[in-house]
């Protein structure tokens, strides 16, 4: 019996919204309802999955729908799972509709337990089992309790290659990534079976044979079998090796767009050589690349071996299909949200609207990496739809902090707390210009400097820049003998590329420098002993006995004369100093050259770099030779020659050898007697020979010799008002050596070098802004004309180099490079100060 519905009433709704029910109901108010329509309504409501039971009845002309909602899951508890973390299991559950708040459906639960078991089997835990429990809770909710017995992991007990005659089981065993349980297996779990790893191993096995001429090599079958207790896996590989094939002939086929001799030079396979698949594939890569450089980026080259079974020889033919010559339509850049487009585009060697060359596209990528602004650069050539010979090249970059910006709080060993804003940014606002201004004070120096360089003043890369500085340095603080230098000046520099990897730089500038020597300046700097200035000291002296009386007077003031000790001073008679009384004091540098100078210097340098990355490079080499000359006519005439080089050599996939050296030679010329001491080379500490205190290697300064003086009452008014010298018993004024600790003085020859093994830090994923290395540093400073009594001062003598070994880590942070190292001295000279731990944060001095 059908009836017209003029209203619909819902009963039993708790959590599901009325809207959802109405949306699922096929019937509207005003329609007629009959038994068929009721059955459809029930079926469609069931399909929503929210309801356990549905009653549709009639109350007059009102359609009454009574529903009993399926329980919703209020809580899910998983226990016993160690290998697969709860979050991963939860994620798997939410993916197929089982999560807190969702409606609980039994079907999905079964599906889920199988899913969990499948995940465990995929991990090699064949004996795992999963049990589920549904606990009812009030308000129509349920709690899911899942208990997992993971069992133990099936580990590989035995890998057996059957049919290998040419190579031993151990040799083939090494090729396999899957290994039987070894003592390291708990760490790298290489004894856990996985299909992917096995296929990888079989490919390596096959290429191992093919690379050694076994062209007929075949893997007949592989069996993976499991012990009944499901905890041991056995892998058997049955192979037939076949014979070794030698190359009988190598030929080219297809139309060579490049003269054949140029291609023939690329052949790695020669007649008579045992065939090797890797050499064949590498040769075809080289040819493809060569054609690519010619503009045929769509070129395809395949090496086809033709076997001759009776004499076990193979004829290799390279089929070349250059395809169409390709042109680059557009070059796009992705990911440079900070760096502007021109900074990237000007590094391009490949032009838009020009013939595409793989070499130029590749070298442009390397040039981007060499900028040092990007953590990673990837390049991708896509065909332009609708054309058969045009490509778009897309470079995707990931930016990294290029320099340190913001007030940098630095603490460099030896120069103490570096305070103030010293901002050095090589990519100023992404314009690629290098700008740095430095307002920094530290115990060792205060510096105000500003430098600006535009590396691309002209499109070809002619750079122009200048810098202005004011610097006050107190070398005493940094273990160098006591003097301070105040200097200010400005310089202009420019440079230009002379080849794809080399640059020449020139610069000229003016510097004014003035030196004050402390009272105890070392002999090399200023002769000593010397008389002090007359304002304080009278040029008079007293005899030794008077000197002792004064000291005794001071030592035990008379009891009767109150606290004022002066009154007890005996009256002494002073004599004038005559030259013969003065000790002999050889002239120091300042005596010969004065202490304030105006210098015009000219510098030129040649720099070559084929490094693969701007910062933290891992391949290639770089070297630079720089020459600095202070022009004649300035107050000082000296020149400085510095050569630095570093070379990277990859050892294995993860280890790289890095060799680094720095050599320096400087000397004076013209009427400057000796290289100005403040231009001396120093060595030791961070960035040179780690493991030794900063700047302490090499010649030491001889401590100053100072005349003894004493205060006395010259005018008898009871107060000591002037100082006077003392006559020593050798007939000359008495003097004594200030025995401050032996400050290094530096020298005019520097020899430094280090060998490092770069290794990836364990447990850290993103290695791109991090570099760690075992290192051996060696180095020292020498001097061509040492002072007579100068200690630790030798002419160049290689077995006088101080050597240290240790571990160093460099990490590029937003503040700039954070570097620290731990090193032990292996060979040290007599006066070297070793220092085990060193670090520096922010822009190091």
């Amino acid at each position, binding site marked *: 019996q059908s009836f017209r519905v003029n209203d619909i009433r819902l009963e039993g709704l708790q959590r599901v919204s009325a809207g959802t029910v109405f949306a699922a109901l096929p019937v509207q108010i005003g329609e007629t309802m009959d038994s068929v329509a009721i059955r459809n309504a029930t079926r469609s409501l069931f399909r929503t999955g929210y309801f356990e039971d549905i009653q549709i009845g009639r109350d007059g002309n009102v359609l009454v729908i009574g529903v009993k909602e399926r329980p919703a899951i209020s809580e899910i508890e998983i*226990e*016993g799972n160690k290998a697969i973390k709860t979050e991963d299991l939860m994620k798997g559950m939410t993916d197929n509709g089982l999560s807190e708040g969702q409606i609980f459906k039994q079907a999905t639960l079964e599906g889920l337990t*199988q899913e969990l*078991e*499948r995940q465990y*089997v995929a991990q090699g835990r*064949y004996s795992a*089992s999963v049990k589920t429990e549904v606990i009812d809770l009030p308000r129509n909710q349920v709690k899911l309790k899942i*208990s997992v*017995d993971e*069992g133990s992991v099936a580990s590989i*007990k*035995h890998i*057996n290659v*059957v*049919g290998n005659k040419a190579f031993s089981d151990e040799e083939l065993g090494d090729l396999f990534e899957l290994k039987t349980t070894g003592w390291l297996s708990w760490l790298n779990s290489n004894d856990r079976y996985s299909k992917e790893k096995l296929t990888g191993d079989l490919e390596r096995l096959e290429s191992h044979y093919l690379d050694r001429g076994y062209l007929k090599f075949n893997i*007949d*079958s592989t*069996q*993976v*079998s*499991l*012990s*009944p*207790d*499901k905890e*041991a896996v*056995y892998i*058997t590989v*049955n192979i*037939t090796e076949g014979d070794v094939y030698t190359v009988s002939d190598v030929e080219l086929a297809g139309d060579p767009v490049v003269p054949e001799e140029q291609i023939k030079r690329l052949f790695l396979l020669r007649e008579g050589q045992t065939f090797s698949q890797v050499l064949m594939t590498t040769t075809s890569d080289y040819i493809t690349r060569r054609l690519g450089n010619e503009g045929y980026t769509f070129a395809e080259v395949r090496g086809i071996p033709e076997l001759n079974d009776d004499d076990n020889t193979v004829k290799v033919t390279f089929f070349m299909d250059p395809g169409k010559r390709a042109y680059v339509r557009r070059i796009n850049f992705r990911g440079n949200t900070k760096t502007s487009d021109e900074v990237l585009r000007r590094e391009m060697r490949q032009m838009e609207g020009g013939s595409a060359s793989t070499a130029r596209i590749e070298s442009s990528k390397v040039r981007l990496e060499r900028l040092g602004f990007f953590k990673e650069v990837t390049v991708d050539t896509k065909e332009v739809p609708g054309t058969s010979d045009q490509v778009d090249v897309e470079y995707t970059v990931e930016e990294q902090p290029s320099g340190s910006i913001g007030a940098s709080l630095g603490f460099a060993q030896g120069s103490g707390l570096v305070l103030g804003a010293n901002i050095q940014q090589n990519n100023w606002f992404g314009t690629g210009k290098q700008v740095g201004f430095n307002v920094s004070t530290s115990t060792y120096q205060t510096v105000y400097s500003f430098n600006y360089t535009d590396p691309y003043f002209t499109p070809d890369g002619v750079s122009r820049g200048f810098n202005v500085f004011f610097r006050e340095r107190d070398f005493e603080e940094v273990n160098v003998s006591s003097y301070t230098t105040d200097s200010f000046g400005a310089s202009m520099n420019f440079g230009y590329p002379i080849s794809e990897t080399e640059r020449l730089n020139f610069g000229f500038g003016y510097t004014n420098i003035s030196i004050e020597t402390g009272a105890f300046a070392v002999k090399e700097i200023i002769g000593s002993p010397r008389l002090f200035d007359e304002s304080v000291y009278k040029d008079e002296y007293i005899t030794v006995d008077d000197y002792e009386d004064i000291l005794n007077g001071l030592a035990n003031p008379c009891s009767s004369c109150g606290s004022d000790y002066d009154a007890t001073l005996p009256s002494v008679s002073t004599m004038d100093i005559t030259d013969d009384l003065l000790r002999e004091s050889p002239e120091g540098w300042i005596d010969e050259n004065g202490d304030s100078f105006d210098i015009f210097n000219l510098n030129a340098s040649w720099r070559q770099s084929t490094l693969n990355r701007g910062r933290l490079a891992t391949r290639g080499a770089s070297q630079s030779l720089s020459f600095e000359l202070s022009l004649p006519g300035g107050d000082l005439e000296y020149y400085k020659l510095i050569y630095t080089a570093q070379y990277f050599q990859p050892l294995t996939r993860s280890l790289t050898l890095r060799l680094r050296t720095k050599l320096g030679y400087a000397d004076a010329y013209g009427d400057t007697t000796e290289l100005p001491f403040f231009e001396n080379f120093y060595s030791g500490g961070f960035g040179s020979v780690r493991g030794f205190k900063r700047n302490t290697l090499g010649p030491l300064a001889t401590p100053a010799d100072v005349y003894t003086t004493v205060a006395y009452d010259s005018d008898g008014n009871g107060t000591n008002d002037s100082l006077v010298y003392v006559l020593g018993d050798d007939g000359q004024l008495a003097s004594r050596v200030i025995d401050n600790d032996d400050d290094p003085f530096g020298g005019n020859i520097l020899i430094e070098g280090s060998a490092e093994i770069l290794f990836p830090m364990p447990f850290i994923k993103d290695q791109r802004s991090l570099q760690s290395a075992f290192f051996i540093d060696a180095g020292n400073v020498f001097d061509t004309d040492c002072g007579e009594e100068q200690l630790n001062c030798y002419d160049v003598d290689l077995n006088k180099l101080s050597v240290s070994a240790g571990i160093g880590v460099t990490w590029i942070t937003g503040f700039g490079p954070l570097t620290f190292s731990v090193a032990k001295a292996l060979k040290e000279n007599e006066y070297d100060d070793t220092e085990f731990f060193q670090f520096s944060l922010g822009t190091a001095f």
Partner: protein
Amino acid sequence: CSSNDDVDLEPAELVDFDETVEINRHWSENVGMGAGKNYNLLPLATLSDQVFAVDAEGLVAAIDIASGDENWETELEVPVSSGVGAAQGQVFLGTLKGEVIALDAVSGTVQWRKPLTGEILAPPQSNGREVVVQTLDGKIYGLQASDGTQLWMHDSTIPALTLRGTSTPLVTATSAYVGFATGKVVALDVKDGTTQWEQRVAVAQGRSELERVIDINSAPLLVGELLYSVSYQGRLVALNRGTGRGLWAQKESSVNNLSAGLGNIYITDADDNVKAYDALSGELVWTNEQLVRRQLGAPQTFGRYVAVADFEGYVHILNQADGAFVARRKVDGDGVRTPMTAVGDTLIVYGNSGELEALSIEE
């Protein structure tokens, strides 16, 4: 809150009972280093009055059953993985490198060696004229017993994941019955390898690779006209030896060999229950669940008793009639995995550490 107790179960404790019979040991010998670490079975073989045993490193020994004296010993210096097969004066062994070796039963000198393509985990069986060998990659080879030349080869594709071990072929004068990892038993003509009949013992079910493993590792057992075979996660079936048609079938799962006696078929299933089925009707006669999870080896009937050995090296003697324990003896601390063999009333047990003992029951 419930700390997640690990849900792995312990092997069943040894049940104490009053021994109704005496086990006495005739002799005990030591054969090399025994079965070694890997899970491989090295079944024994008996020929006239000698028993032959081999250890994992290829030391073969022939020992007189009555006295226990060693007749000869040969060092093969190659890892043997298959245990020993013997027939008409010849002893056969298979190695991990896929090589079949034949020795003279009397002197122990090597007669011939024949390289095959896959690992040999089951002892080669012979009827005197032909030798039948199954290799792990699912191939069956028929070789000339005298000089090892290959007569025929039957190939079958086996699933990717199988259980360790292969079924030992049963060779009669005319045919060879072999169980495969595909869950099928095949009867081949022993002279030319043609298939006489083929019967499916188990059907793979379930979604994961593991649930679909239905290997037949147990050797086919011939009792009169009926051939019995059991697969893992499959069924125990009785087949007519001539036509291969099934007489009866029971849902069962076992990797061990079967044994027969007093009209029953004895089986130790994957859960280490010892069961007896009536040979003709397939009815379950009795079950002994007191050795659960003790990793039992194959049952072996001798006299009126059936013996099973476990992972701690105990040999349990049960009544064939009702499966009750009658005696127990510890043979080898390392456990016993290799199937035992019986000659008349004496039971020969080969422990994992190389301990070979002959036992018999004092009435």
